[in-house]
């Protein structure tokens, strides 16, 4: 049976930015070990030469045209967009 150690559970929790109590760490160690152990059945499957699947649509590089919403901008001046200033001259 492959088992996650307490240290491994703590390490994974740290990577995932989760704060666990010692009781939680113990509980999750037991529960996650059972699940990971179940996964080991996959080692029986021969996957030599099989390509991985990360999505099922077959679509690639779906893009749309960039459209500028001109309703919220001030009229352009000499090929520049003018926006209101966000800093005051007096700001140090």
């Amino acid at each position: 049976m492959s088992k996650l150690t307490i240290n491994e559970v703590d390490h994974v929790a740290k990577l995932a930015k989760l704060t666990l109590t010692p009781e939680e760490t113990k509980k999750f160690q037991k529960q996650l070990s059972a699940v990971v152990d179940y996964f080991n059945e996959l080692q029986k499957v021969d996957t030599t030469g099989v390509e991985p699947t990360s999505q099922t649509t077959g679509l690639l590089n779906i893009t749309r045209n960039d459209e500028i919403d001109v309703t919220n901008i001030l009229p352009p001046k000499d090929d520049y967009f003018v926006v209101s200033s966000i800093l005051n001259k007096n700001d140090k």
Partner: protein
Amino acid sequence: MINKIPQSIEDFQNGLKNKSFSAVDLVGTYLSRIEKYDKDLNSFITISKEKAYEDAKRTDRIINEKGQKAFEEYPLLGVVISYKDIYLTKGIRTTAASKVLEGYIPEYSGTVVKRLEEAGSIMIGKTNCDAWAHGSSGENSDFGPTKNPWNKNYIPGGSSSGSGVAVAADFSLAAMATDTCGSIRLPANYCGVVGLKPTYGSVSRYGVIAMASSLDSIGHITHTVSDSQKIFECTKGVDGKDSTLKNSQNFIVGQNLKIGIPKEFFEGGLDNEVEKSIEEARKVFEKLNIEFVEITLPSTKYAISTYYIIQPAEVSSNLGRFDGIRYGNDRNFFGDEAKRRIMLGTFVLSSGYYDAYYSKAMKIRTIIIKEVEKAFEKVDAIMAPVAPTPPFKLGEKVSDPLKMYLTDIFAATANLSGIPSLAIPSGLTKNKLPLGFQLMGKKFEEDTLFHLGKMYQNKTNFHGNKPQGY
């Protein structure tokens, strides 16, 4: 108050057309039923009463102005819909049934909510579910478990638990839900109603809180297959916001349809009553001249392990954005199941384990897809159980996550391969709990499933079974 709640969009709209009742009457009836019965069942997290009455008044005004024509212009005019609480709804609290988003009010509604509103439907509220859609029983909700209206000691199925119950107990005519691995089909199956998990890439995920992005399907729960089709016609199609979408053409379903029975789904562990009910359903189809063929999907036995590696990996990434800064509360507010999945996902993606788990699972996903494609060379649909047993008791599996995960064993194939699947009720156990089956189809061929489902429901009346006491 309306005494007899209409059970289909057709009945609903006929009542409105004939002025047997108004949309305001309907909304009032549903709201008083929710008030009366939902304290026990806990299928709603938020009721959008004000908005529902507003929309109902608008509906009645449109009908008065346009008469019959109104229903051509708005195909779902007056249809009262509830939404799983992971659909973003502008101005209405959306929690994902998690304390992390306890007070979150979205700035916008997603594509599906918008499309359904544009089709004339009325939103009545947001339904309970397993937090972040993680679960098979509804018990992982941070807002308390939902109960099965057929027997309150039993779970209604998850993760879209409240959506299944809302339809079964007549709190709304239809309910929107999501299916990442059975989360629509399971509650539909356990509550005795119809659930559609559409093809991955047919309905927009824009504005639905992401669980596992390569698997999430946006579908719905209804009483009849015919209603399921009507709603799908409104929700599907490219929206320019979800880049996985493709438009599909409707097509005329051919003659001489063949249904495949995957023998692996019936080997060992399948409950007797579930198996018998599917056998009966098969006979109904055979009388309608549908031919049955035995098929084989040998690698589907690995589907659940494959799924429980890929899904948590994607979950750990999607839930990374909940850091307590951008939305809601901090990560200490995650419940146990979310923590387990985040950690499991982080583990299978972590250095030293990536190849053994994540990479391996992605390759086995390819093998499963190839087997499914091969099976569909010979058949038009695949018939299988939705779950290995009828509904189980509240609390039965909560302390054993692995046991809970195995509930999804027959659901995983459709999500891993992206194909559509329709769950249809097929009777009751001797303890009066719902039974059903699923029909899986080729990608973007939902029409075949609707065709077969309607044939079945024309010949049977299991969808007319109602839980007692409501």
